[in-house]
């Protein structure tokens, strides 16, 4: 029995996720779409378990697993195999360690794989192509566990219940109590586990902490059922009408979309209530749909909604890797559009033709009927070819991305330079003992007079600078570079103040920060501008990210920086954000931020710094 308006729940979940991925800076909380899917799956699976037990007095575990297997596994394999050839369109870095990613996706362990690897800095720039399969892993773990629970519950109740009419209520109570306990336990684990975290991956991805939406859905499924509703639910259905049900559905939809705007991934509140509220709104939407189904016997569900709901699972599978690939080849809106259209086409092929045929059922396409016998040759040939391509890509994939490798090598050279700098200090201290601070006594002058500032250029940068550090050091006269990945403005401030305190900060200070701009970028930048000691000249290098929209913090930081020279005469802008945008060739095959390894990029970057330094010669010092 198909419940008509359930399609709207599925489509809502999908739309939330797609909007989140396509417009992450605007629709920051769209990840709750996954919780809508979770709650719906929990509901449907459990309601069907109750129905099966009500009908047959039993629950068949193997048949349950088989149904889940055919629903989940073939589309997943298809999506992975079809996506891999498209990786030839983008740089080699995007398939870094792809073998393990594929193994995790197909082995339903992506959630734990991401907890282990996802936090690394480079992943912010080169996203994992199959990171989104984390939710399939949690779903699979839920099915395995919940199937076992229902199976043992059914066996136990059959054995202990003599009167047949008592069996169903008992089975319901058994599932209901366990669903409640597991939902509470899982949510409590997330609530407690989220304490003190800044990176929430650990609680977000774990099957333990993120399975409560399934169990909340299960609890609703136990309470309502589909063919065997509880008396309470029957009376709600009897008293409800289609207007109230539609209004409830609409309100829960509005609630979900609002949460999609408000919630943020790196906010504690998301894990201490946000996801739960989203789950409950999804539950309300599911209930309203169930009532609306009964109240609208003569209204058919619009076909396009049924279609979108049918393909929603596969669209979810395809959209993320396609979007990652396309967003590095074209403008964001074009990538979003192409991803949506192509995902829907591939998903329709998967859902209406390949999945039924693989499951041994006939596929009905328009007025034709296709079966395995007709399609086996092309399916096997294309399938084997795709497996071959995937094998080749896996074998050829780098273990470390060139970005990570390049940053690592630059980091090693920086380590060597730092030891050498320490040595230089010791040497200077022996020849000029007064230059070194004496233990227990304050340094003779806390802050040198402007004329005493060390000559030359101090460059403080993030991963972009680190990647080009050696070339920059060789081509900017008299420079000392301190660069590190994941460095935000507040961290750059600390580095600058430390150098200033130790009289190491040279007269020209170049700040190349902003790729990782946080919400407080303006405050942190002004702090740096204000606390720089007199006598210095400050050069601010605007950040560049090929993918950044006007509303990204990094873009806003660049905008702010460009306004500063009018007010502060000692500031000069090195407009990397503007000049880099005119040279897309420098970023070919990269993440659109780091050009490290591309010589033309090294040359351009150093040129921008040197031009700004030349301009700064004519400005007054602070």
């Amino acid at each position: 029995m198909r419940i008509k308006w359930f399609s709207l729940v599925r489509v809502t979940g999908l739309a939330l996720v797609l909007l989140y991925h396509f417009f992450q800076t605007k629709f920051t909380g769209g990840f709750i779409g996954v919780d809508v899917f979770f709650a719906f799956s929990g509901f449907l699976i459990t309601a069907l378990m109750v129905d099966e037990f009500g009908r047959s007095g039993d629950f068949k575990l193997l048949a349950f697993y088989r149904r889940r297997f055919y629903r989940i596994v073939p589309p997943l394999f298809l999506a992975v195999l079809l996506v891999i050839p498209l990786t030839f369109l983008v740089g080699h870095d995007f398939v870094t360690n792809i073998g393990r990613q594929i193994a995790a996706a197909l082995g339903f362990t992506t959630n734990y794989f991401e907890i282990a690897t996802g936090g690394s800095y480079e992943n912010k720039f080169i996203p994992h192509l199959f990171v989104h399969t984390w939710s399939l892993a949690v779903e699979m773990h839920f099915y395995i566990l919940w199937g076992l629970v229902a199976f043992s519950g059914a066996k136990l109740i059959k054995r202990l219940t003599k009167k047949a009419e008592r069996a169903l209520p008992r089975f319901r109570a058994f599932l209901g109590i366990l669903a409640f306990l597991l939902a509470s336990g899982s949510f409590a684990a997330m609530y407690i586990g989220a304490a003190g975290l800044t990176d929430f991956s650990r609680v977000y991805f774990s099957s333990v902490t993120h399975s409560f939406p399934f169990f909340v859905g299960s609890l609703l499924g136990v309470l309502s059922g589909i063919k065997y509703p509880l008396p309470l639910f029957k009376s709600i259905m009897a008293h409800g009408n289609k207007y109230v049900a539609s209004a409830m559905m609409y309100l829960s939809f509005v609630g979900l979309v609002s949460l999609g705007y408000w919630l943020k991934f790196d906010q504690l509140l998301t894990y201490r209530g946000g996801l739960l509220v989203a789950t409950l709104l999804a539950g309300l939407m599911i209930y309203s749909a169930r009532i609306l189904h009964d109240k609208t016997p003569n209204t058919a569900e619009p076909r396009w909604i049924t279609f979108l709901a049918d393909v929603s699972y596969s669209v979810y599978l395809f959209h993320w890797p396609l979007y990652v690939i396309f967003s590095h080849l074209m403008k964001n809106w074009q990538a979003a559009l192409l991803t949506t259209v192509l995902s829907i086409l591939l998903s329709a092929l998967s859902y209406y033709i390949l999945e039924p045929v693989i499951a041994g059922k006939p596929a009905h396409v328009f007025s034709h009927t296709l079966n395995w016998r007709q399609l086996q040759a092309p399916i096997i040939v294309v399938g084997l070819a795709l497996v071959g391509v995937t094998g080749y890509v896996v074998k050829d994939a780098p273990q470390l991305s060139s970005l990570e490798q390049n940053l690592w090598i630059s980091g090693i050279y920086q380590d060597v330079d730092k030891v050498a700098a320490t040595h230089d200090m010791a040497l200077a201290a022996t020849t000029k003992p007064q230059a070194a601070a004496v233990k227990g006594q304050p340094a003779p002058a806390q802050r040198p007079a402007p004329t005493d500032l060390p000559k030359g250029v101090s460059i403080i940068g993030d991963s972009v600078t680190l990647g080009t550090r050696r070339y920059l050091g060789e081509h900017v006269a008299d420079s000392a570079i301190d660069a590190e990945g994941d460095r935000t403005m507040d961290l750059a401030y600390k580095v600058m103040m430390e150098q200033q305190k130790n009289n190491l900060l040279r007269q020209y200070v170049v700040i190349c920060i902003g790729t990782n701009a946080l919400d407080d970028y303006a405050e942190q930048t002004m702090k740096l501008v204000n606390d720089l000691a007199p006598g210095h000249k400050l050069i601010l290098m605007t950040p560049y990210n090929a993918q950044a929209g006007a509303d990204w913090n990094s873009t806003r930081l660049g905008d702010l920086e460009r306004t500063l020279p009018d007010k502060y005469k000692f500031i000069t802008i090195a407009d990397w954000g503007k000049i880099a945008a005119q040279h897309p060739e420098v970023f070919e095959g990269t993440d659109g931020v780091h050009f490290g390894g591309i010589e033309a990029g090294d040359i351009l970057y150093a040129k921008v710094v040197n031009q700004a330094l030349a301009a700064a010669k004519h400005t007054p010092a602070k």
Partner: protein
Amino acid sequence: MGPRQKTRTRQSPVRTVAEIISVIVILALAVISFIPPFHGEAKTELDHGALTYQGQMAENKFAGQGKLKLRDQDYYVGQFKAGRFDGHGRFISHAGWSFQGDFKRGTPSGNGELKLQGKTLYKGLVKDGKLVDAN
């Protein structure tokens, strides 16, 4: 297979075998995804041979005890973490000086001793690359 499926009561043995193989493949992939990347002793080159390394590696980077040689014959021998100098180590420069001491995330930090041609220049605390004590 197709049309007969409609009336089947038991599924074909081929399908059962295919299902079992799929489950085994999935389980094997799950296990593979948990195997950590190479961990152990290795000899490797970086930066087109400008850096040569022999020692412990984990997650494709230097980790643990190892020796890193630079093209100019400078070398570092000691502890590494995530590919960078971290822990106790010794850096020997071809110019005749050396540093022995502690590193934190690539920067001399902790106790350290700097020598030039065998003569101690500095021995004491180092913080973020800077000398805290003076002898």
